[in-house]
Protein backbone atom coordinates (compact mmCIF):
# COMPACT_ATOMS: atom_id res chain seq x y z
CA UNK A 1 0.00 0.00 0.00
CA UNK A 2 2.87 2.29 0.95
CA UNK A 3 4.69 1.38 -2.23
CA UNK A 4 1.59 2.12 -4.22
CA UNK A 5 1.32 5.55 -2.62
CA UNK A 6 4.96 6.33 -3.41
CA UNK A 7 4.49 5.18 -6.98
CA UNK A 8 1.35 7.35 -7.27
CA UNK A 9 3.19 10.41 -5.93
CA UNK A 10 6.17 9.81 -8.19
CA UNK A 11 3.97 9.42 -11.23
CA UNK A 12 1.62 12.37 -10.76
CA UNK A 13 3.96 14.55 -8.75
CA UNK A 14 6.50 14.56 -11.55
CA UNK A 15 4.02 15.30 -14.33
CA UNK A 16 4.14 19.12 -14.08
CA UNK A 17 7.94 19.03 -14.06
CA UNK A 18 8.04 16.75 -17.10
CA UNK A 19 5.48 18.94 -18.93
CA UNK A 20 7.38 22.17 -18.20
CA UNK A 21 10.68 20.67 -19.37
CA UNK A 22 9.21 19.24 -22.55
CA UNK A 23 7.36 22.49 -23.25
CA UNK A 24 10.58 24.47 -23.34
CA UNK A 25 12.20 21.90 -25.59
CA UNK A 26 9.11 21.83 -27.78
CA UNK A 27 9.19 25.61 -27.99
CA UNK A 28 12.82 25.61 -29.09
CA UNK A 29 12.06 23.05 -31.79
CA UNK A 30 8.93 24.87 -32.95
CA UNK A 31 10.71 28.22 -33.00
CA UNK A 32 13.68 26.81 -34.93
CA UNK A 33 11.33 25.31 -37.54
CA UNK A 34 9.51 28.65 -37.91
CA UNK A 35 12.76 30.58 -38.18
CA UNK A 36 14.07 28.19 -40.83
CA UNK A 37 10.90 28.55 -42.90
CA UNK A 38 11.02 32.33 -42.60
CA UNK A 39 14.67 32.30 -43.64
CA UNK A 40 13.70 30.34 -46.75
CA UNK A 41 11.00 32.94 -47.48
CA UNK A 42 13.72 35.58 -47.13
CA UNK A 43 15.90 33.85 -49.69
CA UNK A 44 12.88 34.02 -52.03
CA UNK A 45 12.57 37.76 -51.19
CA UNK A 46 9.07 37.25 -49.89
CA UNK A 47 8.83 37.52 -46.12
CA UNK A 48 5.60 38.64 -44.48
CA UNK A 49 5.36 41.16 -41.66
CA UNK A 50 2.89 38.92 -39.82
CA UNK A 51 5.46 36.12 -39.69
CA UNK A 52 7.95 38.41 -38.00
CA UNK A 53 5.23 39.53 -35.59
CA UNK A 54 4.35 35.92 -34.69
CA UNK A 55 8.04 35.09 -34.14
CA UNK A 56 8.37 38.11 -31.84
CA UNK A 57 5.27 37.08 -29.93
CA UNK A 58 6.68 33.57 -29.52
CA UNK A 59 9.94 34.87 -28.12
CA UNK A 60 8.17 37.26 -25.78
CA UNK A 61 5.92 34.49 -24.44
CA UNK A 62 8.91 32.17 -23.97
CA UNK A 63 10.79 34.90 -22.09
CA UNK A 64 7.78 35.20 -19.80
CA UNK A 65 7.80 31.43 -19.28
CA UNK A 66 4.50 30.85 -21.12
CA UNK A 67 5.65 28.01 -23.35
CA UNK A 68 2.18 26.96 -24.45
CA UNK A 69 1.63 30.39 -25.92
CA UNK A 70 5.19 30.48 -27.27
CA UNK A 71 4.68 27.18 -29.07
CA UNK A 72 1.34 28.31 -30.49
CA UNK A 73 2.91 31.51 -31.84
CA UNK A 74 5.87 29.59 -33.27
CA UNK A 75 3.52 27.24 -35.09
CA UNK A 76 1.55 30.18 -36.41
CA UNK A 77 4.79 31.78 -37.63
CA UNK A 78 5.82 28.56 -39.35
CA UNK A 79 2.46 28.25 -41.10
CA UNK A 80 2.66 31.87 -42.27
CA UNK A 81 6.23 31.44 -43.49
CA UNK A 82 5.26 28.31 -45.41
CA UNK A 83 2.35 30.19 -47.00
CA UNK A 84 4.74 32.95 -48.09
CA UNK A 85 7.06 30.33 -49.61
CA UNK A 86 4.14 28.80 -51.47
CA UNK A 87 3.13 32.25 -52.70
CA UNK A 88 6.62 33.09 -53.94
CA UNK A 89 6.95 29.74 -55.69
CA UNK A 90 3.56 29.77 -57.38
CA UNK A 91 3.89 33.43 -58.41
CA UNK A 92 6.95 32.62 -60.51
CA UNK A 93 4.46 31.66 -63.22
CA UNK A 94 1.13 32.95 -61.88
CA UNK A 95 2.05 36.64 -62.29
CA UNK A 96 1.67 36.26 -66.04
CA UNK A 97 -2.08 35.83 -65.67
CA UNK A 98 -2.37 39.47 -64.54
CA UNK A 99 -0.18 40.92 -67.28
CA UNK A 100 -1.65 43.49 -69.65
CA UNK A 101 -1.05 42.17 -73.16
Amino acid at each position, binding site marked *: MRNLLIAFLLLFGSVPLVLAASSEADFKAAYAAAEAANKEAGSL*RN*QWTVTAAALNAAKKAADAGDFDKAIASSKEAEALAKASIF*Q*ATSEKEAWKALE*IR
Partner: protein
Amino acid sequence: MIMRSAIHFAAAAIALALAFAAVLPGVAADTIDPVADAKAFRKFFTDKFPKVKLEDFVNGPYSMDEDLHRQWEVKEQFPPYEFSLEMGKEMFSKPFKNGKSYEDCFPNKGIGIRQNYPYFDEKEGKVVTLELALNRCREANGEPPFSYVKDEMAALTAYMAFTSRGKPFDIKIPNDPRALEAYQNGKEYFYTRRGQLNFSCATCHVQIPGERIRAEVLAPALGILNAMPIYRSEWSGMGTTSRRFTTCNSQIRGVPFNPQDDEYRNVEYYLSYVSNGLPISGPGARP
Protein backbone atom coordinates in the same frame (compact mmCIF):
# COMPACT_ATOMS: atom_id res chain seq x y z
CA MET B 1 16.91 -0.73 -94.87
CA ILE B 2 16.04 2.30 -96.99
CA MET B 3 12.44 1.97 -95.85
CA ARG B 4 13.50 1.86 -92.17
CA SER B 5 15.66 4.97 -92.61
CA ALA B 6 12.79 6.76 -94.28
CA ILE B 7 10.47 5.88 -91.37
CA HIS B 8 13.08 7.08 -88.84
CA PHE B 9 13.55 10.30 -90.79
CA ALA B 10 9.81 10.92 -91.02
CA ALA B 11 9.36 10.20 -87.31
CA ALA B 12 12.18 12.58 -86.44
CA ALA B 13 10.72 15.27 -88.68
CA ILE B 14 7.27 14.90 -87.09
CA ALA B 15 8.77 14.99 -83.58
CA LEU B 16 10.73 18.13 -84.47
CA ALA B 17 7.64 19.80 -85.91
CA LEU B 18 5.60 18.91 -82.83
CA ALA B 19 8.33 20.20 -80.56
CA PHE B 20 8.41 23.54 -82.41
CA ALA B 21 4.61 23.76 -82.36
CA ALA B 22 4.70 23.22 -78.60
CA VAL B 23 7.54 25.63 -77.94
CA LEU B 24 6.77 28.52 -80.28
CA PRO B 25 3.62 29.87 -78.59
CA GLY B 26 5.50 29.80 -75.29
CA VAL B 27 8.39 31.71 -76.79
CA ALA B 28 6.02 34.23 -78.30
CA ALA B 29 4.29 34.76 -74.94
CA ASP B 30 7.59 35.19 -73.09
CA THR B 31 9.27 37.48 -75.60
CA ILE B 32 10.37 40.73 -73.99
CA ASP B 33 8.97 43.56 -76.06
CA PRO B 34 8.85 46.85 -74.12
CA VAL B 35 7.41 48.80 -77.07
CA ALA B 36 4.48 46.40 -77.38
CA ASP B 37 4.06 46.40 -73.59
CA ALA B 38 3.85 50.20 -73.44
CA LYS B 39 1.34 50.26 -76.28
CA ALA B 40 -0.85 47.61 -74.64
CA PHE B 41 -0.52 49.34 -71.27
CA ARG B 42 -1.70 52.67 -72.61
CA LYS B 43 -4.54 51.04 -74.58
CA PHE B 44 -5.73 49.16 -71.50
CA PHE B 45 -6.17 52.35 -69.48
CA THR B 46 -7.51 54.56 -72.24
CA ASP B 47 -10.07 51.85 -73.09
CA LYS B 48 -10.98 51.43 -69.43
CA PHE B 49 -11.38 55.17 -68.88
CA PRO B 50 -12.40 56.61 -72.25
CA LYS B 51 -13.41 59.96 -70.74
CA VAL B 52 -10.02 60.63 -69.15
CA LYS B 53 -7.61 62.60 -71.30
CA LEU B 54 -4.31 60.82 -71.77
CA GLU B 55 -2.26 63.54 -70.09
CA ASP B 56 -4.65 63.59 -67.13
CA PHE B 57 -3.71 60.06 -66.02
CA VAL B 58 -0.66 61.57 -64.32
CA ASN B 59 -3.02 63.13 -61.77
CA GLY B 60 -3.81 59.72 -60.32
CA PRO B 61 -7.02 59.52 -58.28
CA TYR B 62 -7.95 63.07 -59.33
CA SER B 63 -8.31 61.86 -62.89
CA MET B 64 -10.76 59.15 -61.79
CA ASP B 65 -13.37 61.19 -60.00
CA GLU B 66 -14.89 64.56 -60.92
CA ASP B 67 -15.43 65.72 -57.34
CA LEU B 68 -11.88 64.84 -56.41
CA HIS B 69 -10.65 66.64 -59.53
CA ARG B 70 -12.43 69.82 -58.43
CA GLN B 71 -10.93 69.52 -54.95
CA TRP B 72 -7.50 69.13 -56.49
CA GLU B 73 -7.92 72.22 -58.67
CA VAL B 74 -8.68 74.28 -55.57
CA LYS B 75 -5.82 72.67 -53.66
CA GLU B 76 -3.38 73.54 -56.45
CA GLN B 77 -3.91 77.24 -55.75
CA PHE B 78 -2.09 76.78 -52.43
CA PRO B 79 -0.38 73.45 -52.98
CA PRO B 80 0.69 71.55 -49.86
CA TYR B 81 4.04 70.64 -51.43
CA GLU B 82 5.06 74.28 -51.78
CA PHE B 83 7.19 74.33 -48.63
CA SER B 84 9.03 71.23 -49.77
CA LEU B 85 9.57 72.74 -53.19
CA GLU B 86 11.10 75.88 -51.69
CA MET B 87 13.29 73.79 -49.41
CA GLY B 88 14.44 71.68 -52.36
CA LYS B 89 15.33 74.73 -54.42
CA GLU B 90 17.40 76.14 -51.61
CA MET B 91 19.13 72.81 -50.93
CA PHE B 92 19.84 72.30 -54.61
CA SER B 93 21.63 75.59 -55.03
CA LYS B 94 23.57 75.45 -51.75
CA PRO B 95 27.16 74.32 -52.34
CA PHE B 96 28.62 71.28 -50.55
CA LYS B 97 31.52 71.75 -48.13
CA ASN B 98 33.95 71.16 -50.99
CA GLY B 99 32.46 74.04 -52.99
CA LYS B 100 30.74 71.86 -55.59
CA SER B 101 26.99 71.35 -55.79
CA TYR B 102 24.33 69.07 -57.24
CA GLU B 103 24.63 71.00 -60.49
CA ASP B 104 28.06 69.43 -61.02
CA CYS B 105 26.68 65.89 -60.91
CA PHE B 106 23.94 66.11 -63.52
CA PRO B 107 23.54 66.93 -67.19
CA ASN B 108 22.19 70.45 -67.85
CA LYS B 109 23.08 71.29 -64.24
CA GLY B 110 20.18 69.13 -63.08
CA ILE B 111 17.50 71.39 -64.53
CA GLY B 112 14.69 69.86 -66.61
CA ILE B 113 16.08 66.32 -66.57
CA ARG B 114 13.64 64.45 -64.30
CA GLN B 115 11.90 62.88 -67.30
CA ASN B 116 15.07 60.91 -68.14
CA TYR B 117 15.17 59.05 -64.80
CA PRO B 118 15.52 56.23 -64.08
CA TYR B 119 18.05 55.25 -66.69
CA PHE B 120 20.03 52.08 -67.27
CA ASP B 121 23.71 52.56 -66.48
CA GLU B 122 25.63 50.28 -68.83
CA LYS B 123 28.82 50.62 -66.79
CA GLU B 124 27.17 49.45 -63.61
CA GLY B 125 24.77 47.12 -65.39
CA LYS B 126 21.89 48.39 -63.26
CA VAL B 127 19.07 50.89 -63.16
CA VAL B 128 19.89 54.27 -61.61
CA THR B 129 17.00 56.28 -60.19
CA LEU B 130 17.02 60.00 -59.51
CA GLU B 131 17.03 59.42 -55.75
CA LEU B 132 20.01 57.11 -56.05
CA ALA B 133 21.85 59.55 -58.33
CA LEU B 134 21.29 62.35 -55.80
CA ASN B 135 22.74 60.35 -52.94
CA ARG B 136 25.66 59.23 -55.09
CA CYS B 137 26.31 62.86 -55.89
CA ARG B 138 26.35 63.69 -52.19
CA GLU B 139 28.68 60.83 -51.32
CA ALA B 140 31.03 61.65 -54.20
CA ASN B 141 31.33 65.12 -52.71
CA GLY B 142 31.98 63.98 -49.16
CA GLU B 143 28.44 64.49 -47.87
CA PRO B 144 26.43 61.83 -46.01
CA PRO B 145 23.53 60.32 -47.98
CA PHE B 146 19.96 61.31 -47.14
CA SER B 147 17.31 58.83 -46.08
CA TYR B 148 15.40 57.73 -49.17
CA VAL B 149 12.07 58.05 -47.42
CA LYS B 150 12.37 61.37 -45.62
CA ASP B 151 11.83 65.05 -46.25
CA GLU B 152 15.25 66.08 -47.61
CA MET B 153 15.14 63.58 -50.48
CA ALA B 154 11.52 64.47 -51.16
CA ALA B 155 12.44 68.18 -51.28
CA LEU B 156 15.32 67.68 -53.71
CA THR B 157 13.33 65.48 -56.06
CA ALA B 158 10.34 67.84 -55.79
CA TYR B 159 12.46 70.70 -57.06
CA MET B 160 13.98 68.64 -59.87
CA ALA B 161 10.55 67.35 -60.90
CA PHE B 162 9.20 70.90 -60.89
CA THR B 163 11.87 72.00 -63.36
CA SER B 164 10.69 69.20 -65.67
CA ARG B 165 6.95 69.83 -65.43
CA GLY B 166 5.22 69.20 -68.72
CA LYS B 167 8.15 67.33 -70.23
CA PRO B 168 7.17 63.82 -71.32
CA PHE B 169 8.77 60.79 -69.68
CA ASP B 170 11.57 59.68 -71.98
CA ILE B 171 12.94 56.46 -70.52
CA LYS B 172 15.35 54.57 -72.75
CA ILE B 173 16.15 50.89 -72.83
CA PRO B 174 19.59 50.58 -74.39
CA ASN B 175 20.55 47.70 -76.61
CA ASP B 176 21.94 45.72 -73.71
CA PRO B 177 20.48 42.39 -72.56
CA ARG B 178 20.97 43.45 -68.94
CA ALA B 179 18.75 46.48 -69.49
CA LEU B 180 16.05 44.29 -70.98
CA GLU B 181 16.41 41.90 -68.05
CA ALA B 182 16.06 44.77 -65.56
CA TYR B 183 12.93 45.93 -67.38
CA GLN B 184 11.49 42.42 -67.39
CA ASN B 185 12.29 41.91 -63.69
CA GLY B 186 10.54 45.19 -62.94
CA LYS B 187 7.52 44.05 -64.89
CA GLU B 188 7.47 40.71 -63.09
CA TYR B 189 7.70 42.49 -59.75
CA PHE B 190 4.78 44.74 -60.69
CA TYR B 191 2.47 41.82 -61.38
CA THR B 192 3.68 39.45 -58.63
CA ARG B 193 1.38 38.98 -55.66
CA ARG B 194 3.04 39.27 -52.28
CA GLY B 195 2.32 39.81 -48.62
CA GLN B 196 -0.30 38.10 -46.51
CA LEU B 197 -3.00 40.04 -48.36
CA ASN B 198 -1.83 38.44 -51.62
CA PHE B 199 -1.77 41.73 -53.54
CA SER B 200 0.43 42.76 -56.41
CA CYS B 201 0.97 46.36 -57.50
CA ALA B 202 -1.37 45.48 -60.37
CA THR B 203 -4.14 44.32 -58.05
CA CYS B 204 -4.81 47.92 -57.03
CA HIS B 205 -3.45 49.90 -59.93
CA VAL B 206 -4.52 47.76 -62.91
CA GLN B 207 -7.48 45.69 -61.78
CA ILE B 208 -9.37 48.28 -59.70
CA PRO B 209 -8.10 51.83 -60.28
CA GLY B 210 -10.84 54.36 -59.63
CA GLU B 211 -12.36 52.11 -56.97
CA ARG B 212 -11.92 52.72 -53.27
CA ILE B 213 -9.92 50.88 -50.68
CA ARG B 214 -11.40 52.26 -47.50
CA ALA B 215 -11.43 56.03 -48.11
CA GLU B 216 -8.77 56.06 -50.82
CA VAL B 217 -9.44 56.21 -54.54
CA LEU B 218 -6.87 54.01 -56.26
CA ALA B 219 -4.68 55.58 -58.92
CA PRO B 220 -4.21 54.01 -62.35
CA ALA B 221 -0.74 52.58 -62.99
CA LEU B 222 -0.43 54.61 -66.19
CA GLY B 223 1.40 57.80 -65.24
CA ILE B 224 1.56 56.84 -61.58
CA LEU B 225 5.19 57.95 -61.13
CA ASN B 226 4.91 61.16 -63.16
CA ALA B 227 3.71 63.09 -60.10
CA MET B 228 6.43 61.88 -57.70
CA PRO B 229 7.33 62.98 -55.14
CA ILE B 230 3.94 63.62 -53.59
CA TYR B 231 2.44 65.33 -50.60
CA ARG B 232 0.02 62.87 -49.06
CA SER B 233 -2.62 64.10 -46.68
CA GLU B 234 -2.63 60.61 -45.16
CA TRP B 235 1.07 61.02 -44.32
CA SER B 236 0.75 64.71 -43.44
CA GLY B 237 3.93 65.16 -45.37
CA MET B 238 5.94 64.51 -48.49
CA GLY B 239 6.78 61.07 -49.81
CA THR B 240 9.41 59.89 -52.23
CA THR B 241 9.05 57.06 -54.73
CA SER B 242 11.01 54.89 -52.27
CA ARG B 243 8.55 55.72 -49.51
CA ARG B 244 5.63 54.85 -51.77
CA PHE B 245 7.07 51.45 -52.71
CA THR B 246 8.05 50.45 -49.17
CA THR B 247 4.75 51.51 -47.63
CA CYS B 248 2.82 49.66 -50.35
CA ASN B 249 4.67 46.51 -49.35
CA SER B 250 3.97 47.04 -45.64
CA GLN B 251 0.30 47.73 -46.28
CA ILE B 252 -0.14 44.33 -47.88
CA ARG B 253 1.79 42.80 -44.97
CA GLY B 254 4.92 42.06 -46.89
CA VAL B 255 8.33 42.89 -45.45
CA PRO B 256 9.59 45.80 -47.55
CA PHE B 257 13.03 45.69 -49.11
CA ASN B 258 15.62 48.36 -48.48
CA PRO B 259 14.95 51.48 -50.53
CA GLN B 260 16.84 51.32 -53.83
CA ASP B 261 17.21 47.54 -53.73
CA ASP B 262 17.20 46.08 -57.24
CA GLU B 263 13.50 45.16 -57.10
CA TYR B 264 12.44 48.76 -56.50
CA ARG B 265 14.86 50.20 -59.04
CA ASN B 266 13.60 47.76 -61.66
CA VAL B 267 9.91 48.31 -61.01
CA GLU B 268 10.49 52.06 -61.23
CA TYR B 269 12.22 51.49 -64.56
CA TYR B 270 9.30 49.41 -65.86
CA LEU B 271 6.56 51.75 -64.65
CA SER B 272 8.33 54.83 -65.96
CA TYR B 273 8.98 53.24 -69.34
CA VAL B 274 5.35 52.24 -69.90
CA SER B 275 4.37 55.84 -69.07
CA ASN B 276 6.71 57.27 -71.71
CA GLY B 277 5.14 60.24 -73.46
CA LEU B 278 3.07 61.33 -70.47
CA PRO B 279 4.14 64.62 -68.88
CA ILE B 280 5.98 64.98 -65.60
CA SER B 281 3.58 66.60 -63.14
CA GLY B 282 5.56 66.36 -59.92
CA PRO B 283 5.61 67.34 -57.23
CA GLY B 284 2.07 66.17 -56.71
CA ALA B 285 -0.52 66.07 -53.98
CA ARG B 286 -2.65 63.11 -53.08
CA PRO B 287 -5.48 62.55 -50.57
